């Protein structure tokens, strides 16, 4: 296509509206357009309608919802957004789902899965040649051997590459990717992003990249559309949108992202996202907006062009303040001389035993957590970080080494520890939905440790529950609610309150923000910082997210395959990593501060870290 001719967009969507059966809109008034070879990022938190929008591009709505209006053009041709799109799906526009482990049919070999797609579009040719070549296209080594495998025999990164190969095998003009790297390790994620960038350059495929992670999309997308409550609230070229956000929600989102290159004091947005059916009459963001006026509460703003290619849905976009960032290290507490260690781990080794084999989960782990200090354990999945936390909590047997609490050795298993010892070490789990007993009210959940460890009597309990809820910034009326009535962020705060109820000296936080939206994560991180500073509790913070580390940790330990690769003051380790592994982590971890994307990123070789090699 010549550059001078007016180019037909590869995809053009206007006036999309998806409704629930009840008539309430999930997504409304969404317009998107995409040139060939362009990558558009759709960013939003859970419930923003991003996945609904992505699926609507294929004429599909989740059961319970339907597409009620909207016009879709693919390569200039008007397409009806319903099941009549079936022949076009995969051929003209294809979809890469979030969880490749579940999206690939577990009982079909990879080649068979690819041939299914080819067959559906009458593109099946003799032999397995096409299947293999489409695998080679996404840089899967040993494609021929791989094609004969089953999905469970591949690593997560390989599975996602297969998903992408599937989406590309019929050479569609547009690929819709729905959170394709969520759940993958950063290094693996980096490889996938690299691959997408290359495919775009080579084949000029247009891509819609849906994600909750502004940092990831900033490294890939040419343009970004930010969604909130079923609408696009801001759209623009990546660098401009991130450099000077004009919508207060975009700004709030950016200010909530913990970043390891350019850390900030996280500034969580107040309130929680409005759900379907509870959207206010005026601007949907007005209830949480710092710059709202009377106008915002009555009239819905339109998505207006403010300059070339930049659109904002806000009456007062010129008032949005810039975001300030600070330098690495400023967030960390000053190393005081009188720091006293509360928790010491000496030469810890933990194993996973099955009937036949013993796998070492962690070995020779030594560190200490001081009062009022936050120590981060960073590592990818399988690095043994969760096992270490569980061993300290007495939930996993210690094979050798010691855990000392205030200088005294802790027995290995929780039921051999004294009540006092159990009180002093509390653990908060990753998944807030599973960490609370679904049959206990919030009040009962929080009251239990208070009664067990502090012998508070019945009269004192309601007061204490209210105080603890306030401590984690939750209203006291939540005490009578059950966990399923709470949002994810609220549940995690309840879990923190339950830990606080024991008045512990150390809290072990196992990936406690990884299941939360960034704005909720920011609020929880802020809460933990306050607890560390005000209560003086020691924190062991386990995470895979370097941005979170930069925001909250004073000291960081980098774990690689069960051993400590590097440890030190957070700022030192992140600024100048000495271990090769840490360097790779720091280089590949997504950040909004690595613009323009492509230049910095090239040069780091693609390395599959877990289970990727073929025999």
């Amino acid at each position, binding site marked *: 296509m010549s550059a001078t001719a007016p180019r037909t967009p590869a995809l053009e969507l206007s006036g999309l509206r998806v409704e629930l059966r009840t008539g309430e809109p999930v997504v409304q008034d969404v317009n998107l357009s995409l040139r060939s070879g362009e990558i558009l990022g759709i960013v939003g938190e859970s419930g923003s309608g991003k996945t609904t929008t992505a699926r609507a591009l294929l004429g599909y709505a989740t059961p319970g919802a339907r597409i009620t209006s909207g016009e879709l053009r693919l390569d200039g041709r008007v397409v009806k957004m319903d099941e009549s799109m079936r022949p076009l799906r995969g051929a003209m526009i294809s979809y890469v789902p979030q969880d490749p482990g579940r999206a690939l049919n577990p009982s079909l070999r990879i080649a068979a899965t690819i041939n299914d797609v080819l067959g559906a579009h009458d593109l099946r040719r003799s032999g397995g040649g096409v299947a293999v070549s489409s695998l080679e296209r996404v840089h899967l080594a040993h494609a021929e051997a791989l094609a004969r495998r089953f999905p469970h025999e591949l690593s997560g990164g390989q599975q996602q590459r297969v998903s992408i190969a599937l989406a590309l095998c019929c050479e569609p003009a547009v690929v819709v990717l729905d959170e394709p790297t969520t759940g993958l390790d950063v290094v693996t994620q980096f490889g996938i992003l690299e691959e997408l960038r290359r495919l775009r350059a080579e084949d000029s495929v247009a891509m819609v990249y849906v994600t909750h992670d502004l940092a990831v999309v900033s490294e890939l997308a040419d343009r970004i559309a930010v969604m909130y409550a079923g609408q696009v609230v801001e759209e623009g070229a990546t660098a401009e949108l991130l450099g000077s956000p004009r919508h207060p929600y975009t700004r709030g989102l950016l200010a909530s992202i913990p970043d390891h290159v350019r850390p900030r004091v996280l500034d969580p947005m107040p309130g929680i996202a409005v759900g379907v059916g509870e959207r206010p009459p005026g601007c949907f963001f007005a209830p949480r907006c710092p710059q709202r006026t009377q106008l915002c509460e009555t009239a819905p703003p339109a998505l207006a062009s403010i300059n070339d290619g930049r659109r904002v849905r806000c009456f007062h976009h010129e008032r949005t303040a810039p975001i300030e960032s600070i330098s690495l290290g400023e967030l960390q507490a000053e190393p005081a001389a009188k720091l006293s260690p509360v928790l010491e781990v000496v030469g810890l080794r933990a194993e996973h035993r099955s009937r036949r084999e013993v796998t070492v989960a962690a070995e020779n782990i030594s560190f200490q957590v001081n009062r009022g200090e936050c120590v981060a354990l960073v590592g990818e999945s399988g690095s043994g970080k969760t096992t270490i936390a569980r061993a300290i909590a007495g*939930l996993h047997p210690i094979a050798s080494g010691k855990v000392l609490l205030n200088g005294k050795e802790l027995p290995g298993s929780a039921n051999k520890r004294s009540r006092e010892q*159990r009180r002093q070490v509390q653990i908060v789990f*990753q998944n807030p939905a599973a*960490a609370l007993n*679904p049959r206990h009210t919030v009040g009962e959940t929080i009251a239990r440790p208070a009664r067990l460890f502090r012998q508070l009597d019945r009269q004192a309990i309601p007061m204490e529950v209210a105080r603890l809820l306030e401590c984690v910034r939750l209203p006291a009326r939540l005490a009578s609610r059950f966990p399923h009535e709470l949002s994810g962020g609220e549940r995690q705060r309840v879990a923190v309150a*339950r830990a606080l109820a024991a008045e512990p000296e150390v809290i072990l936080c196992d990936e406690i923000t990884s299941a939360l939206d960034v704005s909720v994560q920011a609020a929880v991180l802020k809460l933990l910082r306050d607890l560390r500073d005000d209560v003086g509790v020691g924190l062991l913070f386990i995470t895979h997210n370097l941005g979170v580390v930069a925001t909250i940790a004073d000291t960081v330990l980098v774990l690689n395959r069960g051993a400590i690769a590097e440890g030190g003051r957070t700022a030192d380790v992140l600024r100048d990593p000495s271990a090769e592994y840490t360097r790779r982590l720091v280089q590949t971890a997504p950040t909004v501060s690595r613009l323009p994307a492509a230049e910095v990123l090239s040069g780091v070789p693609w390395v599959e870290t877990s289970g990727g090699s073929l025999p």
Partner: protein
Amino acid sequence: MPGVRARAAWLTGTREGIVGLILLLFVVAVGLVGPLVAPHPITAPIGAPGAGPSAAAPLGTDFLGRDVLSRVLHGGLPVFELSVASMALTYLVGVAVGLSAGLSRSVLDAVLMRAVDLFLVFPPLLLLLVLMTGAGTGSGILIIGIALVLFPGVARVVRTATLEVATQPYLEAAIARGETRFALMRREILPNISEPILADFGIRFSGAIILAASVNFLGLGSHPPAANWGLMIAENRVIIGTNPWAVLIPAALLALVTVSVNLLADAYIKGHRREGGR
């Protein structure tokens, strides 16, 4: 109290709940009030054996000429006593064994479950008959026998459900708190496995009723001339040609008991799934 109303919502809010409740109340009323309103004694003949319905005996007479209506009205109570007692014993043993096995990560699990398997290999009726031939035919023995037949299934269901909960972080949080084993079972696990247990309860309950009826049919368990719906089916089969009511009515009532209990179990699960969900 709003709490009570919310907790009872599964009963009145689902079709299964309403129908099951009405049916069960009807059968229980027949069984409990029946003995008080029965027009005739249950042991004395009032007419010719196997006669059809008449003014004196609306449901006719049985194989010995006794009033079927009176015997039906008296025959419910022993069925209820037997099923409630045997279910209680079944679940007491089954839940205790299943929870202990599921929660233990030691050899206890294997030992308990292999012991349970041992009971499973016997054909249920044979086990019951052998037991009753050896230990006597009283209703106490029958209750123990039914529990022995049914508890292995309950134990297995409970153990499987427990294993699932046992890996949940909220249980680990409780272990890390140092809760006693009993508190873990009662506070953390039992409320969360009530759904599979209740889904299973309907089937077990029907099983108990059928077992008791079979044993009665074979002439063990209830001793004639006592009235009992299961026994009535057995003893009146010889006159089914002349007075079918003597068999059909007790059979229908037994069926109603199992149907209503199953409906209620379904309603409970439906109601709680809707409320809890995630």
